[in-house]
Structure formats: structure tokens, C-alpha cells
């Protein structure tokens, strides 16, 4: 089957409503190439949704300061947490007898983000035609999308690693902790690099000014 068939588009929607079958197929049945294509498409759409939502959402649900808005940072806000999550999850599950490979973890995570796009994207326009009293629907759908995504993340993790539910929950909590640890290490590393750069540049200046 060609990866560009209509099945490529139907499958993600099938997955979000039938997550157990969907993630099983993702791991064992479907081509890795097609999964990766869809995953990256999901990430890009997620960025687009976030950027458009902060720019075009209705005034009643979106008080935003145009000076704080940076579309490039929106890419970072999506890509970095996903990457951190995947790395942390992979590092943990390799130690905890998880069966998932890194690619599988990555694709299952990306597929779990689909509800956040499918639900939030139409709301960018809908939020422009609602009143203050009707904004509760907006917030309800947002929370619903987030919970749905969390559920998909849970099922995806469980299927990919072939864990029991309890172990999956424990792994997910540990992953969040590991993400925090990684962020800390990254900051530490960055500041160390900064120190080294400053040190080298100071020495360079000293030598240059001596002559």
C-alpha cells in the first residue's frame, strides 16, 4: 500500500477513537515511514494551531500582548516538551523493561496530540462568535481535548511498552520528574558553557591588549 493513500489520513482519526487497536497497529502493523510522516505533520499542525490561536482567537478568551507574541518561540514550546518527554520516557523505559523503541515512543506521543489540534483548531474561529457567558464551552472543550490527549498518551505508552496500567502511570509520573531533571541539567550546562566562553574571551582580550 502506498503511504499516500487516503488511509494515511483516515488512520489518525481511527486511532484517537479506538486507541487500543490504533496503537497496536502503530507498533506492529504499520510502516514506520508513514508513521513518522504523520507524526511530523502533527507537530507542525500543532505549532500552526498554537500560533493561530494566540493571534486569532476571540478577544473574550484571548487577552494577548502583541509585544509578547513570538511565533518562533511557539515552535520551541511545542518541540522542546515533546522531545524532552520522548527522551525522558525512553531513558526510563529502557531501564524498566519497556519494549518500545525511541521511534515508537515518538510516534505514539505525536499521535496522542491529535485531539489538541482537532478540537482546538475550529475553536480559533468559533471563539470569535461567542459571548462571555458562552466562553465556558470554550474552556470545557479545551480541557476535554487536554484530557483526551492525556488518555491517548497513557494508552500509547502502555501499548508501546507492553506495560500494565499501574506501571504505565508510575512511568509517566517518573518521566515528568525526569523531564524536570533534564531541564535542570540543560540550564546547568548552558551556564557552564557561558562561563567557559566568557573565560576564553577574557583570555583572548588579555592577550590582544598586552601587545
Amino acid at each position, binding site marked *: 500500500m502506498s503511504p499516500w493513500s487516503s488511509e494515511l489520513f483516515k488512520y489518525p482519526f481511527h486511532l484517537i477513537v479506538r486507541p487500543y487497536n490504533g496503537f497496536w497497529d502503530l507498533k506492529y502493523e504499520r510502516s514506520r515511514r508513514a508513521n513518522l510522516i504523520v507524526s511530523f505533520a502533527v507537530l507542525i499542525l500543532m505549532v500552526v494551531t498554537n500560533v493561530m490561536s494566540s493571534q486569532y482567537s476571540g478577544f*473574550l478568551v484571548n487577552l494577548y500582548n502583541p509585544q509578547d507574541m513570538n511565533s518562533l518561540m511557539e515552535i520551541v514550546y511545542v518541540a522542546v516538551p515533546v522531545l524532552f518527554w520522548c527522551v525522558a520516557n525512553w531513558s526510563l523505559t529502557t531501564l524498566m523493561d519497556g519494549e518500545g523503541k525511541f521511534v515508537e515512543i515518538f510516534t505514539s506521543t505525536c499521535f496522542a496530540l491529535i485531539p489538541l489540534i482537532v478540537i482546538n483548531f475550529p475553536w480559533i474561529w468559533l471563539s470569535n*462568535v461567542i*459571548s*462571555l457567558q458562552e466562553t465556558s464551552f470554550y474552556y470545557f472543550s479545551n480541557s476535554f481535548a487536554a484530557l483526551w490527549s492525556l488518555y491517548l498518551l497513557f494508552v500509547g505508552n502502555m501499548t508501546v511498552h507492553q506495560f500494565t496500567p499501574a506501571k504505565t502511570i508510575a512511568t509517566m509520573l517518573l518521566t515528568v520528574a525526569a523531564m524536570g531533571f533534564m531541564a535542570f541539567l540543560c540550564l546547568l550546562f548552558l551556564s557552564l558553557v557561558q562561563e567557559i566562553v566568557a573565560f576564553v574571551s577574557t583570555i583572548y582580550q588579555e592577550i590582544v591588549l598586552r601587545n
Partner: protein
Amino acid sequence: MSNKLRHARIRLLAVLSMLLSVGAGGTLAYADGGSESYNYSFWGDTVPAPAAYEATVSIAGEGAGAGPFKDPSDLHVTPDGRIYVLDSGNNRIVVLNRQFKEVETIDAFDNGGSEDAFLNPQGLFVTEQGQILVADTGNKRVVHLDQNRKLVKIVDSPESELLQADFDFQPVRVVVDKAQRLYVMAVGVFDGFMEFNANGEFTTFIGANRVRVDPVELFWKRFSTRAQRSRMVMFTPTEFTNMDINEEGFIYATNGDAWGDTIKKLNAQGNDILRRTGYFSPRGEVRYTNEEGPSRLVDIDVADSEIYSVLDAKRGRIYTYNGDGHFMYVFGGLGNRLGEFNTPVAIERVRDDFLVLDKALGEITVFRTTEYGRTLNEAVRAYYRGDEEKAFELFQKTINMNANLEFAYAGIGKALLRQGDYAEAMKYFKRSMDQANYSKAFLLYRKEVLREYFPSIMTGIVVLLVVAFAWRKYRKAKGGKRNVSVEQRVV
């Protein structure tokens, strides 16, 4: 004929050039707003604003013909424009007329046959009829004189089970309401203001400040012995720093806290009913450094239309808010130039002008409105009265001078909403970040649009349905067989 035409043309030219020059003059006049004055945007950024007030003159005691003031601590202005200065160091009250010339000096009064005087008085209040109340701090009493400077009553050594036996009554500020009740701010009283009835008997305390407990202190207190605890800081409510009363009898008060609501509007029960619907809760400076700290408010003055101003002693600035808590303008500062102070202690508003009393210099500085300040004041008044037409016009003028004044857009939006121009009103509410009113305008706008297009939308849908239905019937009747064969092929 052609002559006439030429005349008309020249006249038109003249009118046009006049209009142009007026416009140019206008921009010139507003351009020198200076960056001294500022306002806060919705996002908490400081944005420049044109000056609303300018210092015009400063008056010392000598200039008024009353001899120099010594540590004056309070002043009061009656509606007829008379200025009462409480010259504490000289134990007297100096009354000035509108031209800032002395007309009267009160340094003694007749107390039951013998002459009596003040001793280091700190607070002064003058009723609309010209009756004078003095918080005679050094003599531990409040003195009430009538308009002929005859003694009405003296309030001293209050007695009540609410007060401790060794209570030392040192009044520093006093106000009186329409029912002749006295409200006194006294030194060392943490329970709020002391309320006295018309006969001068103590009735109750109102409007105590809240206690704030420092968690670190509390933690250590838990682990200390009784003896240790008795030597630690006590958690007591803070004292008020000043008070004023408006024509409706609400007391406006400031306290010296560095946190929480430092400005309060107390009703008769002592509850705080100040509206804080502005972008920031009114408390003077919003953006400050850690070393500088928040504003220390030492005086408050409430004018008509619920407009009130507070004086920040730390920065020497006067902040003015409208009844909804929107920040209108700021002026003043510490320094040596005209319009700057050394130790400002009291402010008073005379119609649209401000008087600021400086204790160390013994001077009163007079501030008068600029074009911008006048327009904004009038706009806020018109809005308060509910005169939306007028408010609309004046707010338009205001934002022409200061496009950064975000709350003015809501005033315009309200007028537009009333006029039925919902789409335009939405735009203005959006500019003032007013979601509640935006939603109101939007609902009306949506209703209007739907009412206009509902018939055509519904007609469109019905027509589409009919066409689709007919098309399917037609397909079934004519190409039914082919359809089936296509389906079979797919399967």
C-alpha cells in the same frame, strides 16, 4: 458673476487656512506634554502621558501676610474657596481667601470665660457652614468651634468598656459627617477610627485594618517559650495614615502598609466598599524597584464624582483615580523646583485646582489643570453623571491628546453602545481591554446581524436541501442502474 465666484473661492481659502492653523496650533500645544507624567497600560507598562496639572505658584506664610508657617500639618478648603491652614508649630489656624491673602488667624478661643489655645494641633476639618474642628493633639482633645469661632464643644478623655483604663487619647485627624458624628484618627489606636456622636460621646470603632501574619515570624513563635514570645513582635493591625469624607458621608482612608489595599472607602459599618475595577488596584505606584518599595500614602482627598487623589510621601507624587479605580493622572515629585516638594503632608482639591502643603518648607503649592487635565476631569464627571453624549465628546478629545489612556476608550464605547452602533462599540471596548462590555456589545451585534441575514441563510439552506433531494431523485430515476454497477465495481 465670475467676481462673485472668486470671492467665494477666497473666502473658502481663508476658512481652510484658518482650520489648518487651528489644527497646527493644537498639535503644538499638546506636543510639549513632557515625559514627567505617565500612566499605566493594561499590561502594567509605564506609558507617557501629557501633564494634567502644572504648578503655577507657591505661597509661603509671609506672602500671605500672616508671618511664616512653622511645620504646618494640615489644610482644608471650604466650598466658598477659603483655605484653612493648620500652622501647628505656631499653634494657630490661618484662613486665606481665594487670592491667597490672610483674612483671619485663629490662635485662641473662649473656653467658659477663660482664654484657651491649641497645643501642637495636627488635624483640621471645616464643615460647609464654616464650623471648625481641630485635633488638638498636644492638649489631647478635639475642639469644635462654630462659624463665629465660639466654642461648641470639646471632646476629650473618652470613656468606654472598649477602651483600656489607661487609654491616652491623642487625636491627629478628624472629620465630621452630615449627622454631626465625629470620626477621629488617634495615635496608637489599632482598631480603626474612633466614632463620637453629636454630643461628643465615644460610641465605637470602625474600619479596623487587617492583621497580616508573617509566616516566618509565626513559625518561630510556635517554637518559642512564653517569655521569648513576649519579647517578639506582636501581630497588630496597622494604623491609618489619613482620612477624608465625601458629600455622601463615606470615609476615604489611607494606611501605611506596604501590601494589600492601602486605600479604603468605608461605609457606616466600617466595611471597605472601594471599587477596584481599574487595570490595577489603586495603591499609588504600580511599578517600583525593590529598594524603592511601594508608595507610602499620607493623605487622601476626595472630590466630586467619586474622584479621589492620594499623596505618596516617598515620591512626593499625587495619584488621582476615578470612582471605578481607573488611574487618571499623576503629578508632583521631590525636588527643589516649583511643583516639587520636600516633605509633602497634605493635599486638598479646590474644584479642579490642587493645593499641596509642604511641612518642612512651610509652603503651599498651587497646581492648575492643563487643557488635557481639564478635559479628562470633565469627561470623567460627565461619565459619572451618566451624560454619555458629553462623555463621548470629551473622551474623544482626551484620547486625541493621549491615545494611551485606555479606560477612555471604554467611555466612548459605552456611548456608542447606547447609540446602537454595536460594531464600533466593540472596537472601542477591545482597545480598553474591557471584556465584559465587549461581550455585551457583541451579543447585541450578533443579534442584529443574525436578524438581518437569518431569512437569507434559512432560504439558502432550504433551497440547497430541495435541490439535493431533487438531484438524488433524478439520479435514482435515471441512472439508478449505472450507480449500482459503480458500487459493485468498488466492492
